[in-house]
């Protein structure tokens, strides 16, 4: 391509009148029907005028164009304008600079139809460093957030596991505590049984030291009386309990006619005032040479000299009380 301002396009040849009639009709029919083809001719006219002003047309082209000028005042005006424009463009300091973007191009209004907003955005060198920095910042922030999220997630899982372990430990401890409580209860029951057993053995030892005939026997600190079924307060067979001064405890050996109950309740009541001075529950009968007896150990100060009655009740398996026998006796002081 030569260094003329426009190539040998159909538009140029048309404007210079260098086309055949057929070419001309075809081009004219085209620009009548298509606005873009008409615009192309207008642009070609600009280029032709500039080439003429710059004296860059071939001799024949310049001659043909000159002929056109004679018939068009409009073209003459355009040529005169092009001449001053060229003069000003050549003398301007701006035009002498290498083509660079002097001011940022608006991102919206001058974008070519069909380009996307991001293409316009990345077209400007000014925005690129800021965009690159923004992208890096976003990536760093994302990395930090993801790392922190992962840490929190791991911590949550760990805490859940620990909670489950602690729960299991608590359940095991509760179970152990329950078992321990059960064992404690059993131990307490065992101890109670043991105490009762020892008490029985003590009574048995005391019984072994008692003479064969039921008589009052005085031991140091103890006063003993044997009560049998059908004893009377007065006359022959009456049971008297003598309490010398310094006696601490009165032992009452109560003989049972029959042993029909697993345990017995016994209460001592004054005959005159019907007041209960002593009672004991769940007494176990003891086997002696004379039969089954109940043993009551009564503090001597509960028994001032008076007539008393020992009421014995049998305790059934269901816990109900059934009257067995009354045993009267008299307390005197020597």
């Amino acid at each position: 391509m030569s260094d003329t301002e426009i190539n040998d396009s159909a538009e140029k040849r048309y404007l210079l009148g260098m086309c055949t009639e057929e070419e001309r009709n075809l081009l004219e029919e085209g620009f009548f029907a298509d606005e873009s083809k008409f615009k192309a001719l207008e642009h070609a006219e600009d280029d032709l005028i500039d080439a003429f002003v710059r004296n860059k047309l071939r001799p024949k082209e310049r001659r043909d164009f000159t002929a056109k000028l004679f018939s068009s005042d409009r073209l003459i005006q355009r040529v005169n304008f092009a001449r001053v424009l060229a003069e000003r463009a050549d003398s301007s300091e701006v035009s002498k600079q290498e083509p660079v973007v002097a001011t940022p191009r608006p991102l919206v209004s001058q974008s070519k139809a069909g380009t996307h907003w991001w293409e316009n955005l990345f077209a400007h060198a000014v925005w690129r460093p800021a965009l690159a920095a923004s992208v890096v910042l976003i990536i760093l922030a994302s990395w930090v957030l993801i790392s922190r999220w992962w840490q929190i997630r791991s911590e949550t899982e760990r805490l859940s596991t620990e909670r489950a372990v602690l729960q299991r430990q608590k359940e095991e401890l509760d179970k152990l505590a329950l078992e321990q409580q059960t064992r404690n209860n059993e131990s307490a029951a065992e101890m109670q049984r043991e105490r009762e057993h020892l008490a029985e053995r003590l009574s048995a030892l005391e019984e072994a030291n008692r003479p064969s005939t039921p008589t009052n026997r005085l031991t140091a600190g103890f006063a003993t009386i044997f009560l049998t079924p059908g004893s009377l307060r007065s006359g022959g067979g009456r049971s008297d309990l003598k309490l010398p001064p310094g006696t601490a405890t009165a032992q009452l050996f109560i003989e049972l006619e029959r042993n029909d109950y697993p345990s017995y309740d016994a209460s001592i009541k004054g005959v005159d005032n019907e007041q209960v001075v002593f009672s004991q529950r769940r007494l176990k009968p003891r086997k002696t040479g004379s039969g089954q007896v109940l043993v009551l150990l009564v503090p001597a100060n509960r028994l001032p000299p008076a007539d008393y009655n020992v009421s014995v009740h049998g305790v059934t398996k269901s816990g109900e009380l059934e009257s067995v026998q009354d045993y009267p006796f008299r307390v005197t002081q020597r």
Partner: protein
Amino acid sequence: MGRSNWTLTAEALAKLLEHFSANREEAGRQYNLMVLKLTRYFEWRSRPAPEELAEETISRVARRIDEGENVTNLHGYFFSVARLVFMESVREDSTVPLDEIPELPADEVCVDEEEDERLSCLDRCLDQLPVESRNLILKYYHDEKRAKIDYRKQLANALGIPLNALRIRAHRIRIALEKCVSECLTHAA
């Protein structure tokens, strides 16, 4: 068909506009564009008084439509009528053959007696342009020693637009400047 005494009435014009577009605004734009095309056609065909010939063409088309002729391809119809008017004009007129036109140096053609005023008006009109447009037009028409197509391609790349878009933008600014300078000269006169 010679030039008749038929005048374009408002009713006929309305019918003609309807043939351009149902939208009134678009019809007006296309009508003005057609007037420009017709004027250029006759001018590029080196016909004297191209505006009158364009007006004659419009009048004939409007009359045909007003008389009830069914015109389906309006642009093609305009072209046909324009060719007819052109041929009539050639028969009526005689132009100097090209080979009889003396070859004159470029600087002897279009001697501008208003060059100084024109230059002054151009400076004034350039100052009225946005900075970006002013820089674009001055760079676009700067005469580089290298091939202009390469320079303008470099200019387009610097602006981040295709070469054709640069050409369209420069043409638009140039037309606006020409109009501004013309009005400036008219006021100065």
